């Protein structure tokens, strides 16, 4: 957790810091507009995107309800194909297992393709502590690894950096000045990382979907590093959040029809890999050993609760791209691995800290995330449920709402208190009324609205 800001600054501090970064906000605006535009274009290839989203939501619900049986089947299939399965109930267990495997093979160098689950369990840090070199190979992840930063977007981790900043970071590695031209920076990355792939002892990847019926791992990527990570080193370790299962290939079809379209507007990502077991006799390449780490790490505590639907998420990033809050502050303001609306819900469920509880407030409940989500997760409902879960701890706020309810739960109380507010408001903008903390926060950036002396009922009396 060392690199993440969740515990180091309050939500308000993190958002105001981000708001002051004009360059960041420009980058975010351009990026999220582009992504949202591409998503709309991609979905237009479907005859009925809304119907497909509803089907996808139902499928995720059905699969989550059957998760234990499907995981059972998934593991049986994996083992029958010669893979190893580790059941990681928490992050320590996951890290220790991967470290064991690495030790057992004398691993010195690891190449990684994008895996948010591995960042969640701080796997890199743990392996580096054992003297193992870990190299992120996804272009954006490599850039932020070199810059010693955390990802700011699920799909495009370095989206907060412009080309000049990226050129600076990569120039340090190159030992000389690189041009800012993206294609040249990319060519440098290709050449530099190619050497690492050839040299690495172990590859670590995430898993977009596990297929229970066959024990297959599905990886959805664009660059090719995911394929290299899972093809070149002798050992492949896949870290999978336990909820990332589909029952069969028919269900996979529905998810794949929505995933790339929702993320980037593509019909399919450049490489959709379906991995079933390690290398087979007669194959020239591929890992000799395949290890799948099935990760709980707090996810099970969400099952059987009103928050269960957050486990439906397929990590497409669409909610980030339409969120009016994310647009203004970017991913770092959310303080942890997962940002945007998904992060505002998932973090407080996986991280049991006071700081995490603030995150459900990082939303105006506009519902844009819900409408963009390919599997129809009603994120606004989950944010509200989180606020309910955590509200009783805020005693001063609770006292205020109790007073409000006491006044407004009777028709006479409602009318009387409005009359009082009207009377006080007529004393003018300097009135004590406006010194309430909430009102003073309002008025710092906005004028306080005038409260008319007479209300609707006064007119109604004369004009019924």
């Amino acid at each position: 957790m060392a690199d993440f800001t969740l515990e180091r600054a309050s939500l308000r501090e993190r958002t105001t810091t981000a708001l002051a970064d004009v360059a960041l906000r420009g980058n975010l605006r351009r990026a999220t507009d582009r992504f949202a535009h591409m998503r709309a274009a991609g979905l237009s290839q479907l005859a009925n995107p809304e119907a497909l989203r509803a089907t996808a939501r139902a499928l995720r619900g059905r699969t989550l309800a059957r998760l234990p049986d499907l995981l059972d089947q998934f593991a049986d299939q994996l083992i029958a194909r010669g893979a190893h399965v580790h059941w990681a109930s928490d992050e320590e267990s996951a890290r220790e297992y991967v470290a064991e495997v690495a030790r057992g093979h004398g691993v010195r160098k690891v190449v990684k393709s994008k895996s948010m689950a591995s960042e969640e369990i701080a796997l890199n840090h743990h392996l580096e502590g054992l003297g193992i070199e870990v190299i992120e190979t996804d272009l954006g992840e490599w850039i932020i690894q070199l810059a010693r930063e955390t990802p700011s977007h699920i799909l495009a981790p370095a989206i907060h950096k412009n080309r000049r900043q990226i050129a600076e970071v990569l120039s340090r590695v190159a030992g000389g000045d690189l041009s800012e031209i993206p294609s040249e920076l990319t060519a440098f990355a290709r050449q530099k990382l190619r050497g690492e792939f050839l040299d690495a002892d172990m590859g670590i990847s995430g898993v977009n979907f596990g297929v229970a019926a066959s024990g297959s791992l599905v990886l959805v990527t664009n660059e090719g590093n995911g394929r290299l990570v899972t093809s070149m080193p002798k050992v492949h370790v896949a870290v999978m959040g336990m909820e990332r299962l589909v029952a069969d290939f028919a269900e996979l079809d529905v998810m794949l029809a929505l995933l790339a379209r929702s993320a980037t507007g593509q019909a399919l990502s450049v490489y959709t890999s379906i991995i079933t077991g390690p290398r087979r006799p007669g194959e020239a390449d591929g890992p000799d050993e395949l290890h799948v780490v099935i990760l709980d790490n707090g996810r099970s505590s969400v099952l059987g609760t009103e928050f269960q639907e957050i486990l439906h998420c397929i990590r497409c990033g669409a909610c980030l791209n339409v969120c009016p809050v994310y647009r203004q502050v970017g991913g770092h303001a959310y303080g942890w691995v997962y940002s945007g609306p998904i992060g505002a819900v998932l973090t407080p469920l996986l991280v049991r800290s006071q700081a995490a509880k603030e995150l459900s407030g990082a939303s105006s409940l506009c519902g844009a995330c819900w409408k963009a989500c390919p599997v129809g997760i009603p994120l606004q409902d989950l944010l509200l449920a989180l606020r309910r879960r955590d509200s009783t701890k805020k005693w001063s706020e609770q006292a205020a709402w109790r007073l409000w309810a006491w006044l407004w739960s009777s028709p006479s109380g409602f009318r009387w208190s409005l009359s009082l507010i009207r009377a006080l408001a007529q004393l003018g903008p300097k009135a004590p009324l406006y010194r309430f903390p909430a009102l003073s926060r309002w008025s710092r950036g906005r004028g306080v609205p005038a409260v008319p002396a007479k209300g609707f009922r006064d007119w109604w009396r004369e004009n019924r």
Partner: protein
Amino acid sequence: MKTKYRRKVALFVTCVVDALSPKTGVAVVRTLRRRGIQVVFPQDQGCCGQPAWNAGFAQEAALVARPTLLALKRALDQGAEAVVCPAGSCATMCRVFWPEMFEVAGLHAEAALARRVGASVLEYSELVEGLPIVPLVPDGRRVALHKSCHMLRELGLEGQAAFLAQRAGCRLVEWPGDDRCCGFGGTFSVKLPELSVAMADEKLRELDENPPDLILGCDTSCLVQLSARSQARGRPLAAVHLAEVLDRAELAAEREGRDG
């Protein structure tokens, strides 16, 4: 003047309109009356509970909403065919969230009632779109139409307000972020005020180059957020409810009719 009313509708004026913009409620009543609708006003109504519900205080929200629920129910039992509400987020609260709110608060009988009553609550533009046309003098002003989040996404109401505004002679200007949240969000606006202001600013900046005569919308909270911020940033814009624009155009026609 004794008017023959063909239909009866109950008005849920909402606490925001009552406190900050009662003229919106007045415009709602007048425009409906012109369309042959008798408006009844259940006196015991108050707030729908949304402020507390959005803040995570379900119990308090339910206690406050209960008298409103019962008042609207009585009106429906006494022959009102629907409830009209001039605030998109309050209409959403009644229709989408009331049953859940009362259940969470343990008020099961009220939850059952809310399913029936809530379903009868119509947002203003939703109701008026299907009502008879009334003579009006075209407005002629350039307006930027803000699409409030709740009614847009939860109630699926998008074209009605634009249709009515254009029929009233308003010239709708292009607004790229018209469906982006204004940044109000209830207590969000005071818990993260800088962020709330930044969200309003981005929308308002899009109107800087060619400012409209006014901002138009169907939710007073959004209108207050936008106009208050526009004032503070030195480029004041009036933000007016659709009902008031229709009322103004129709009143002008009535005057012409009398004078002409």
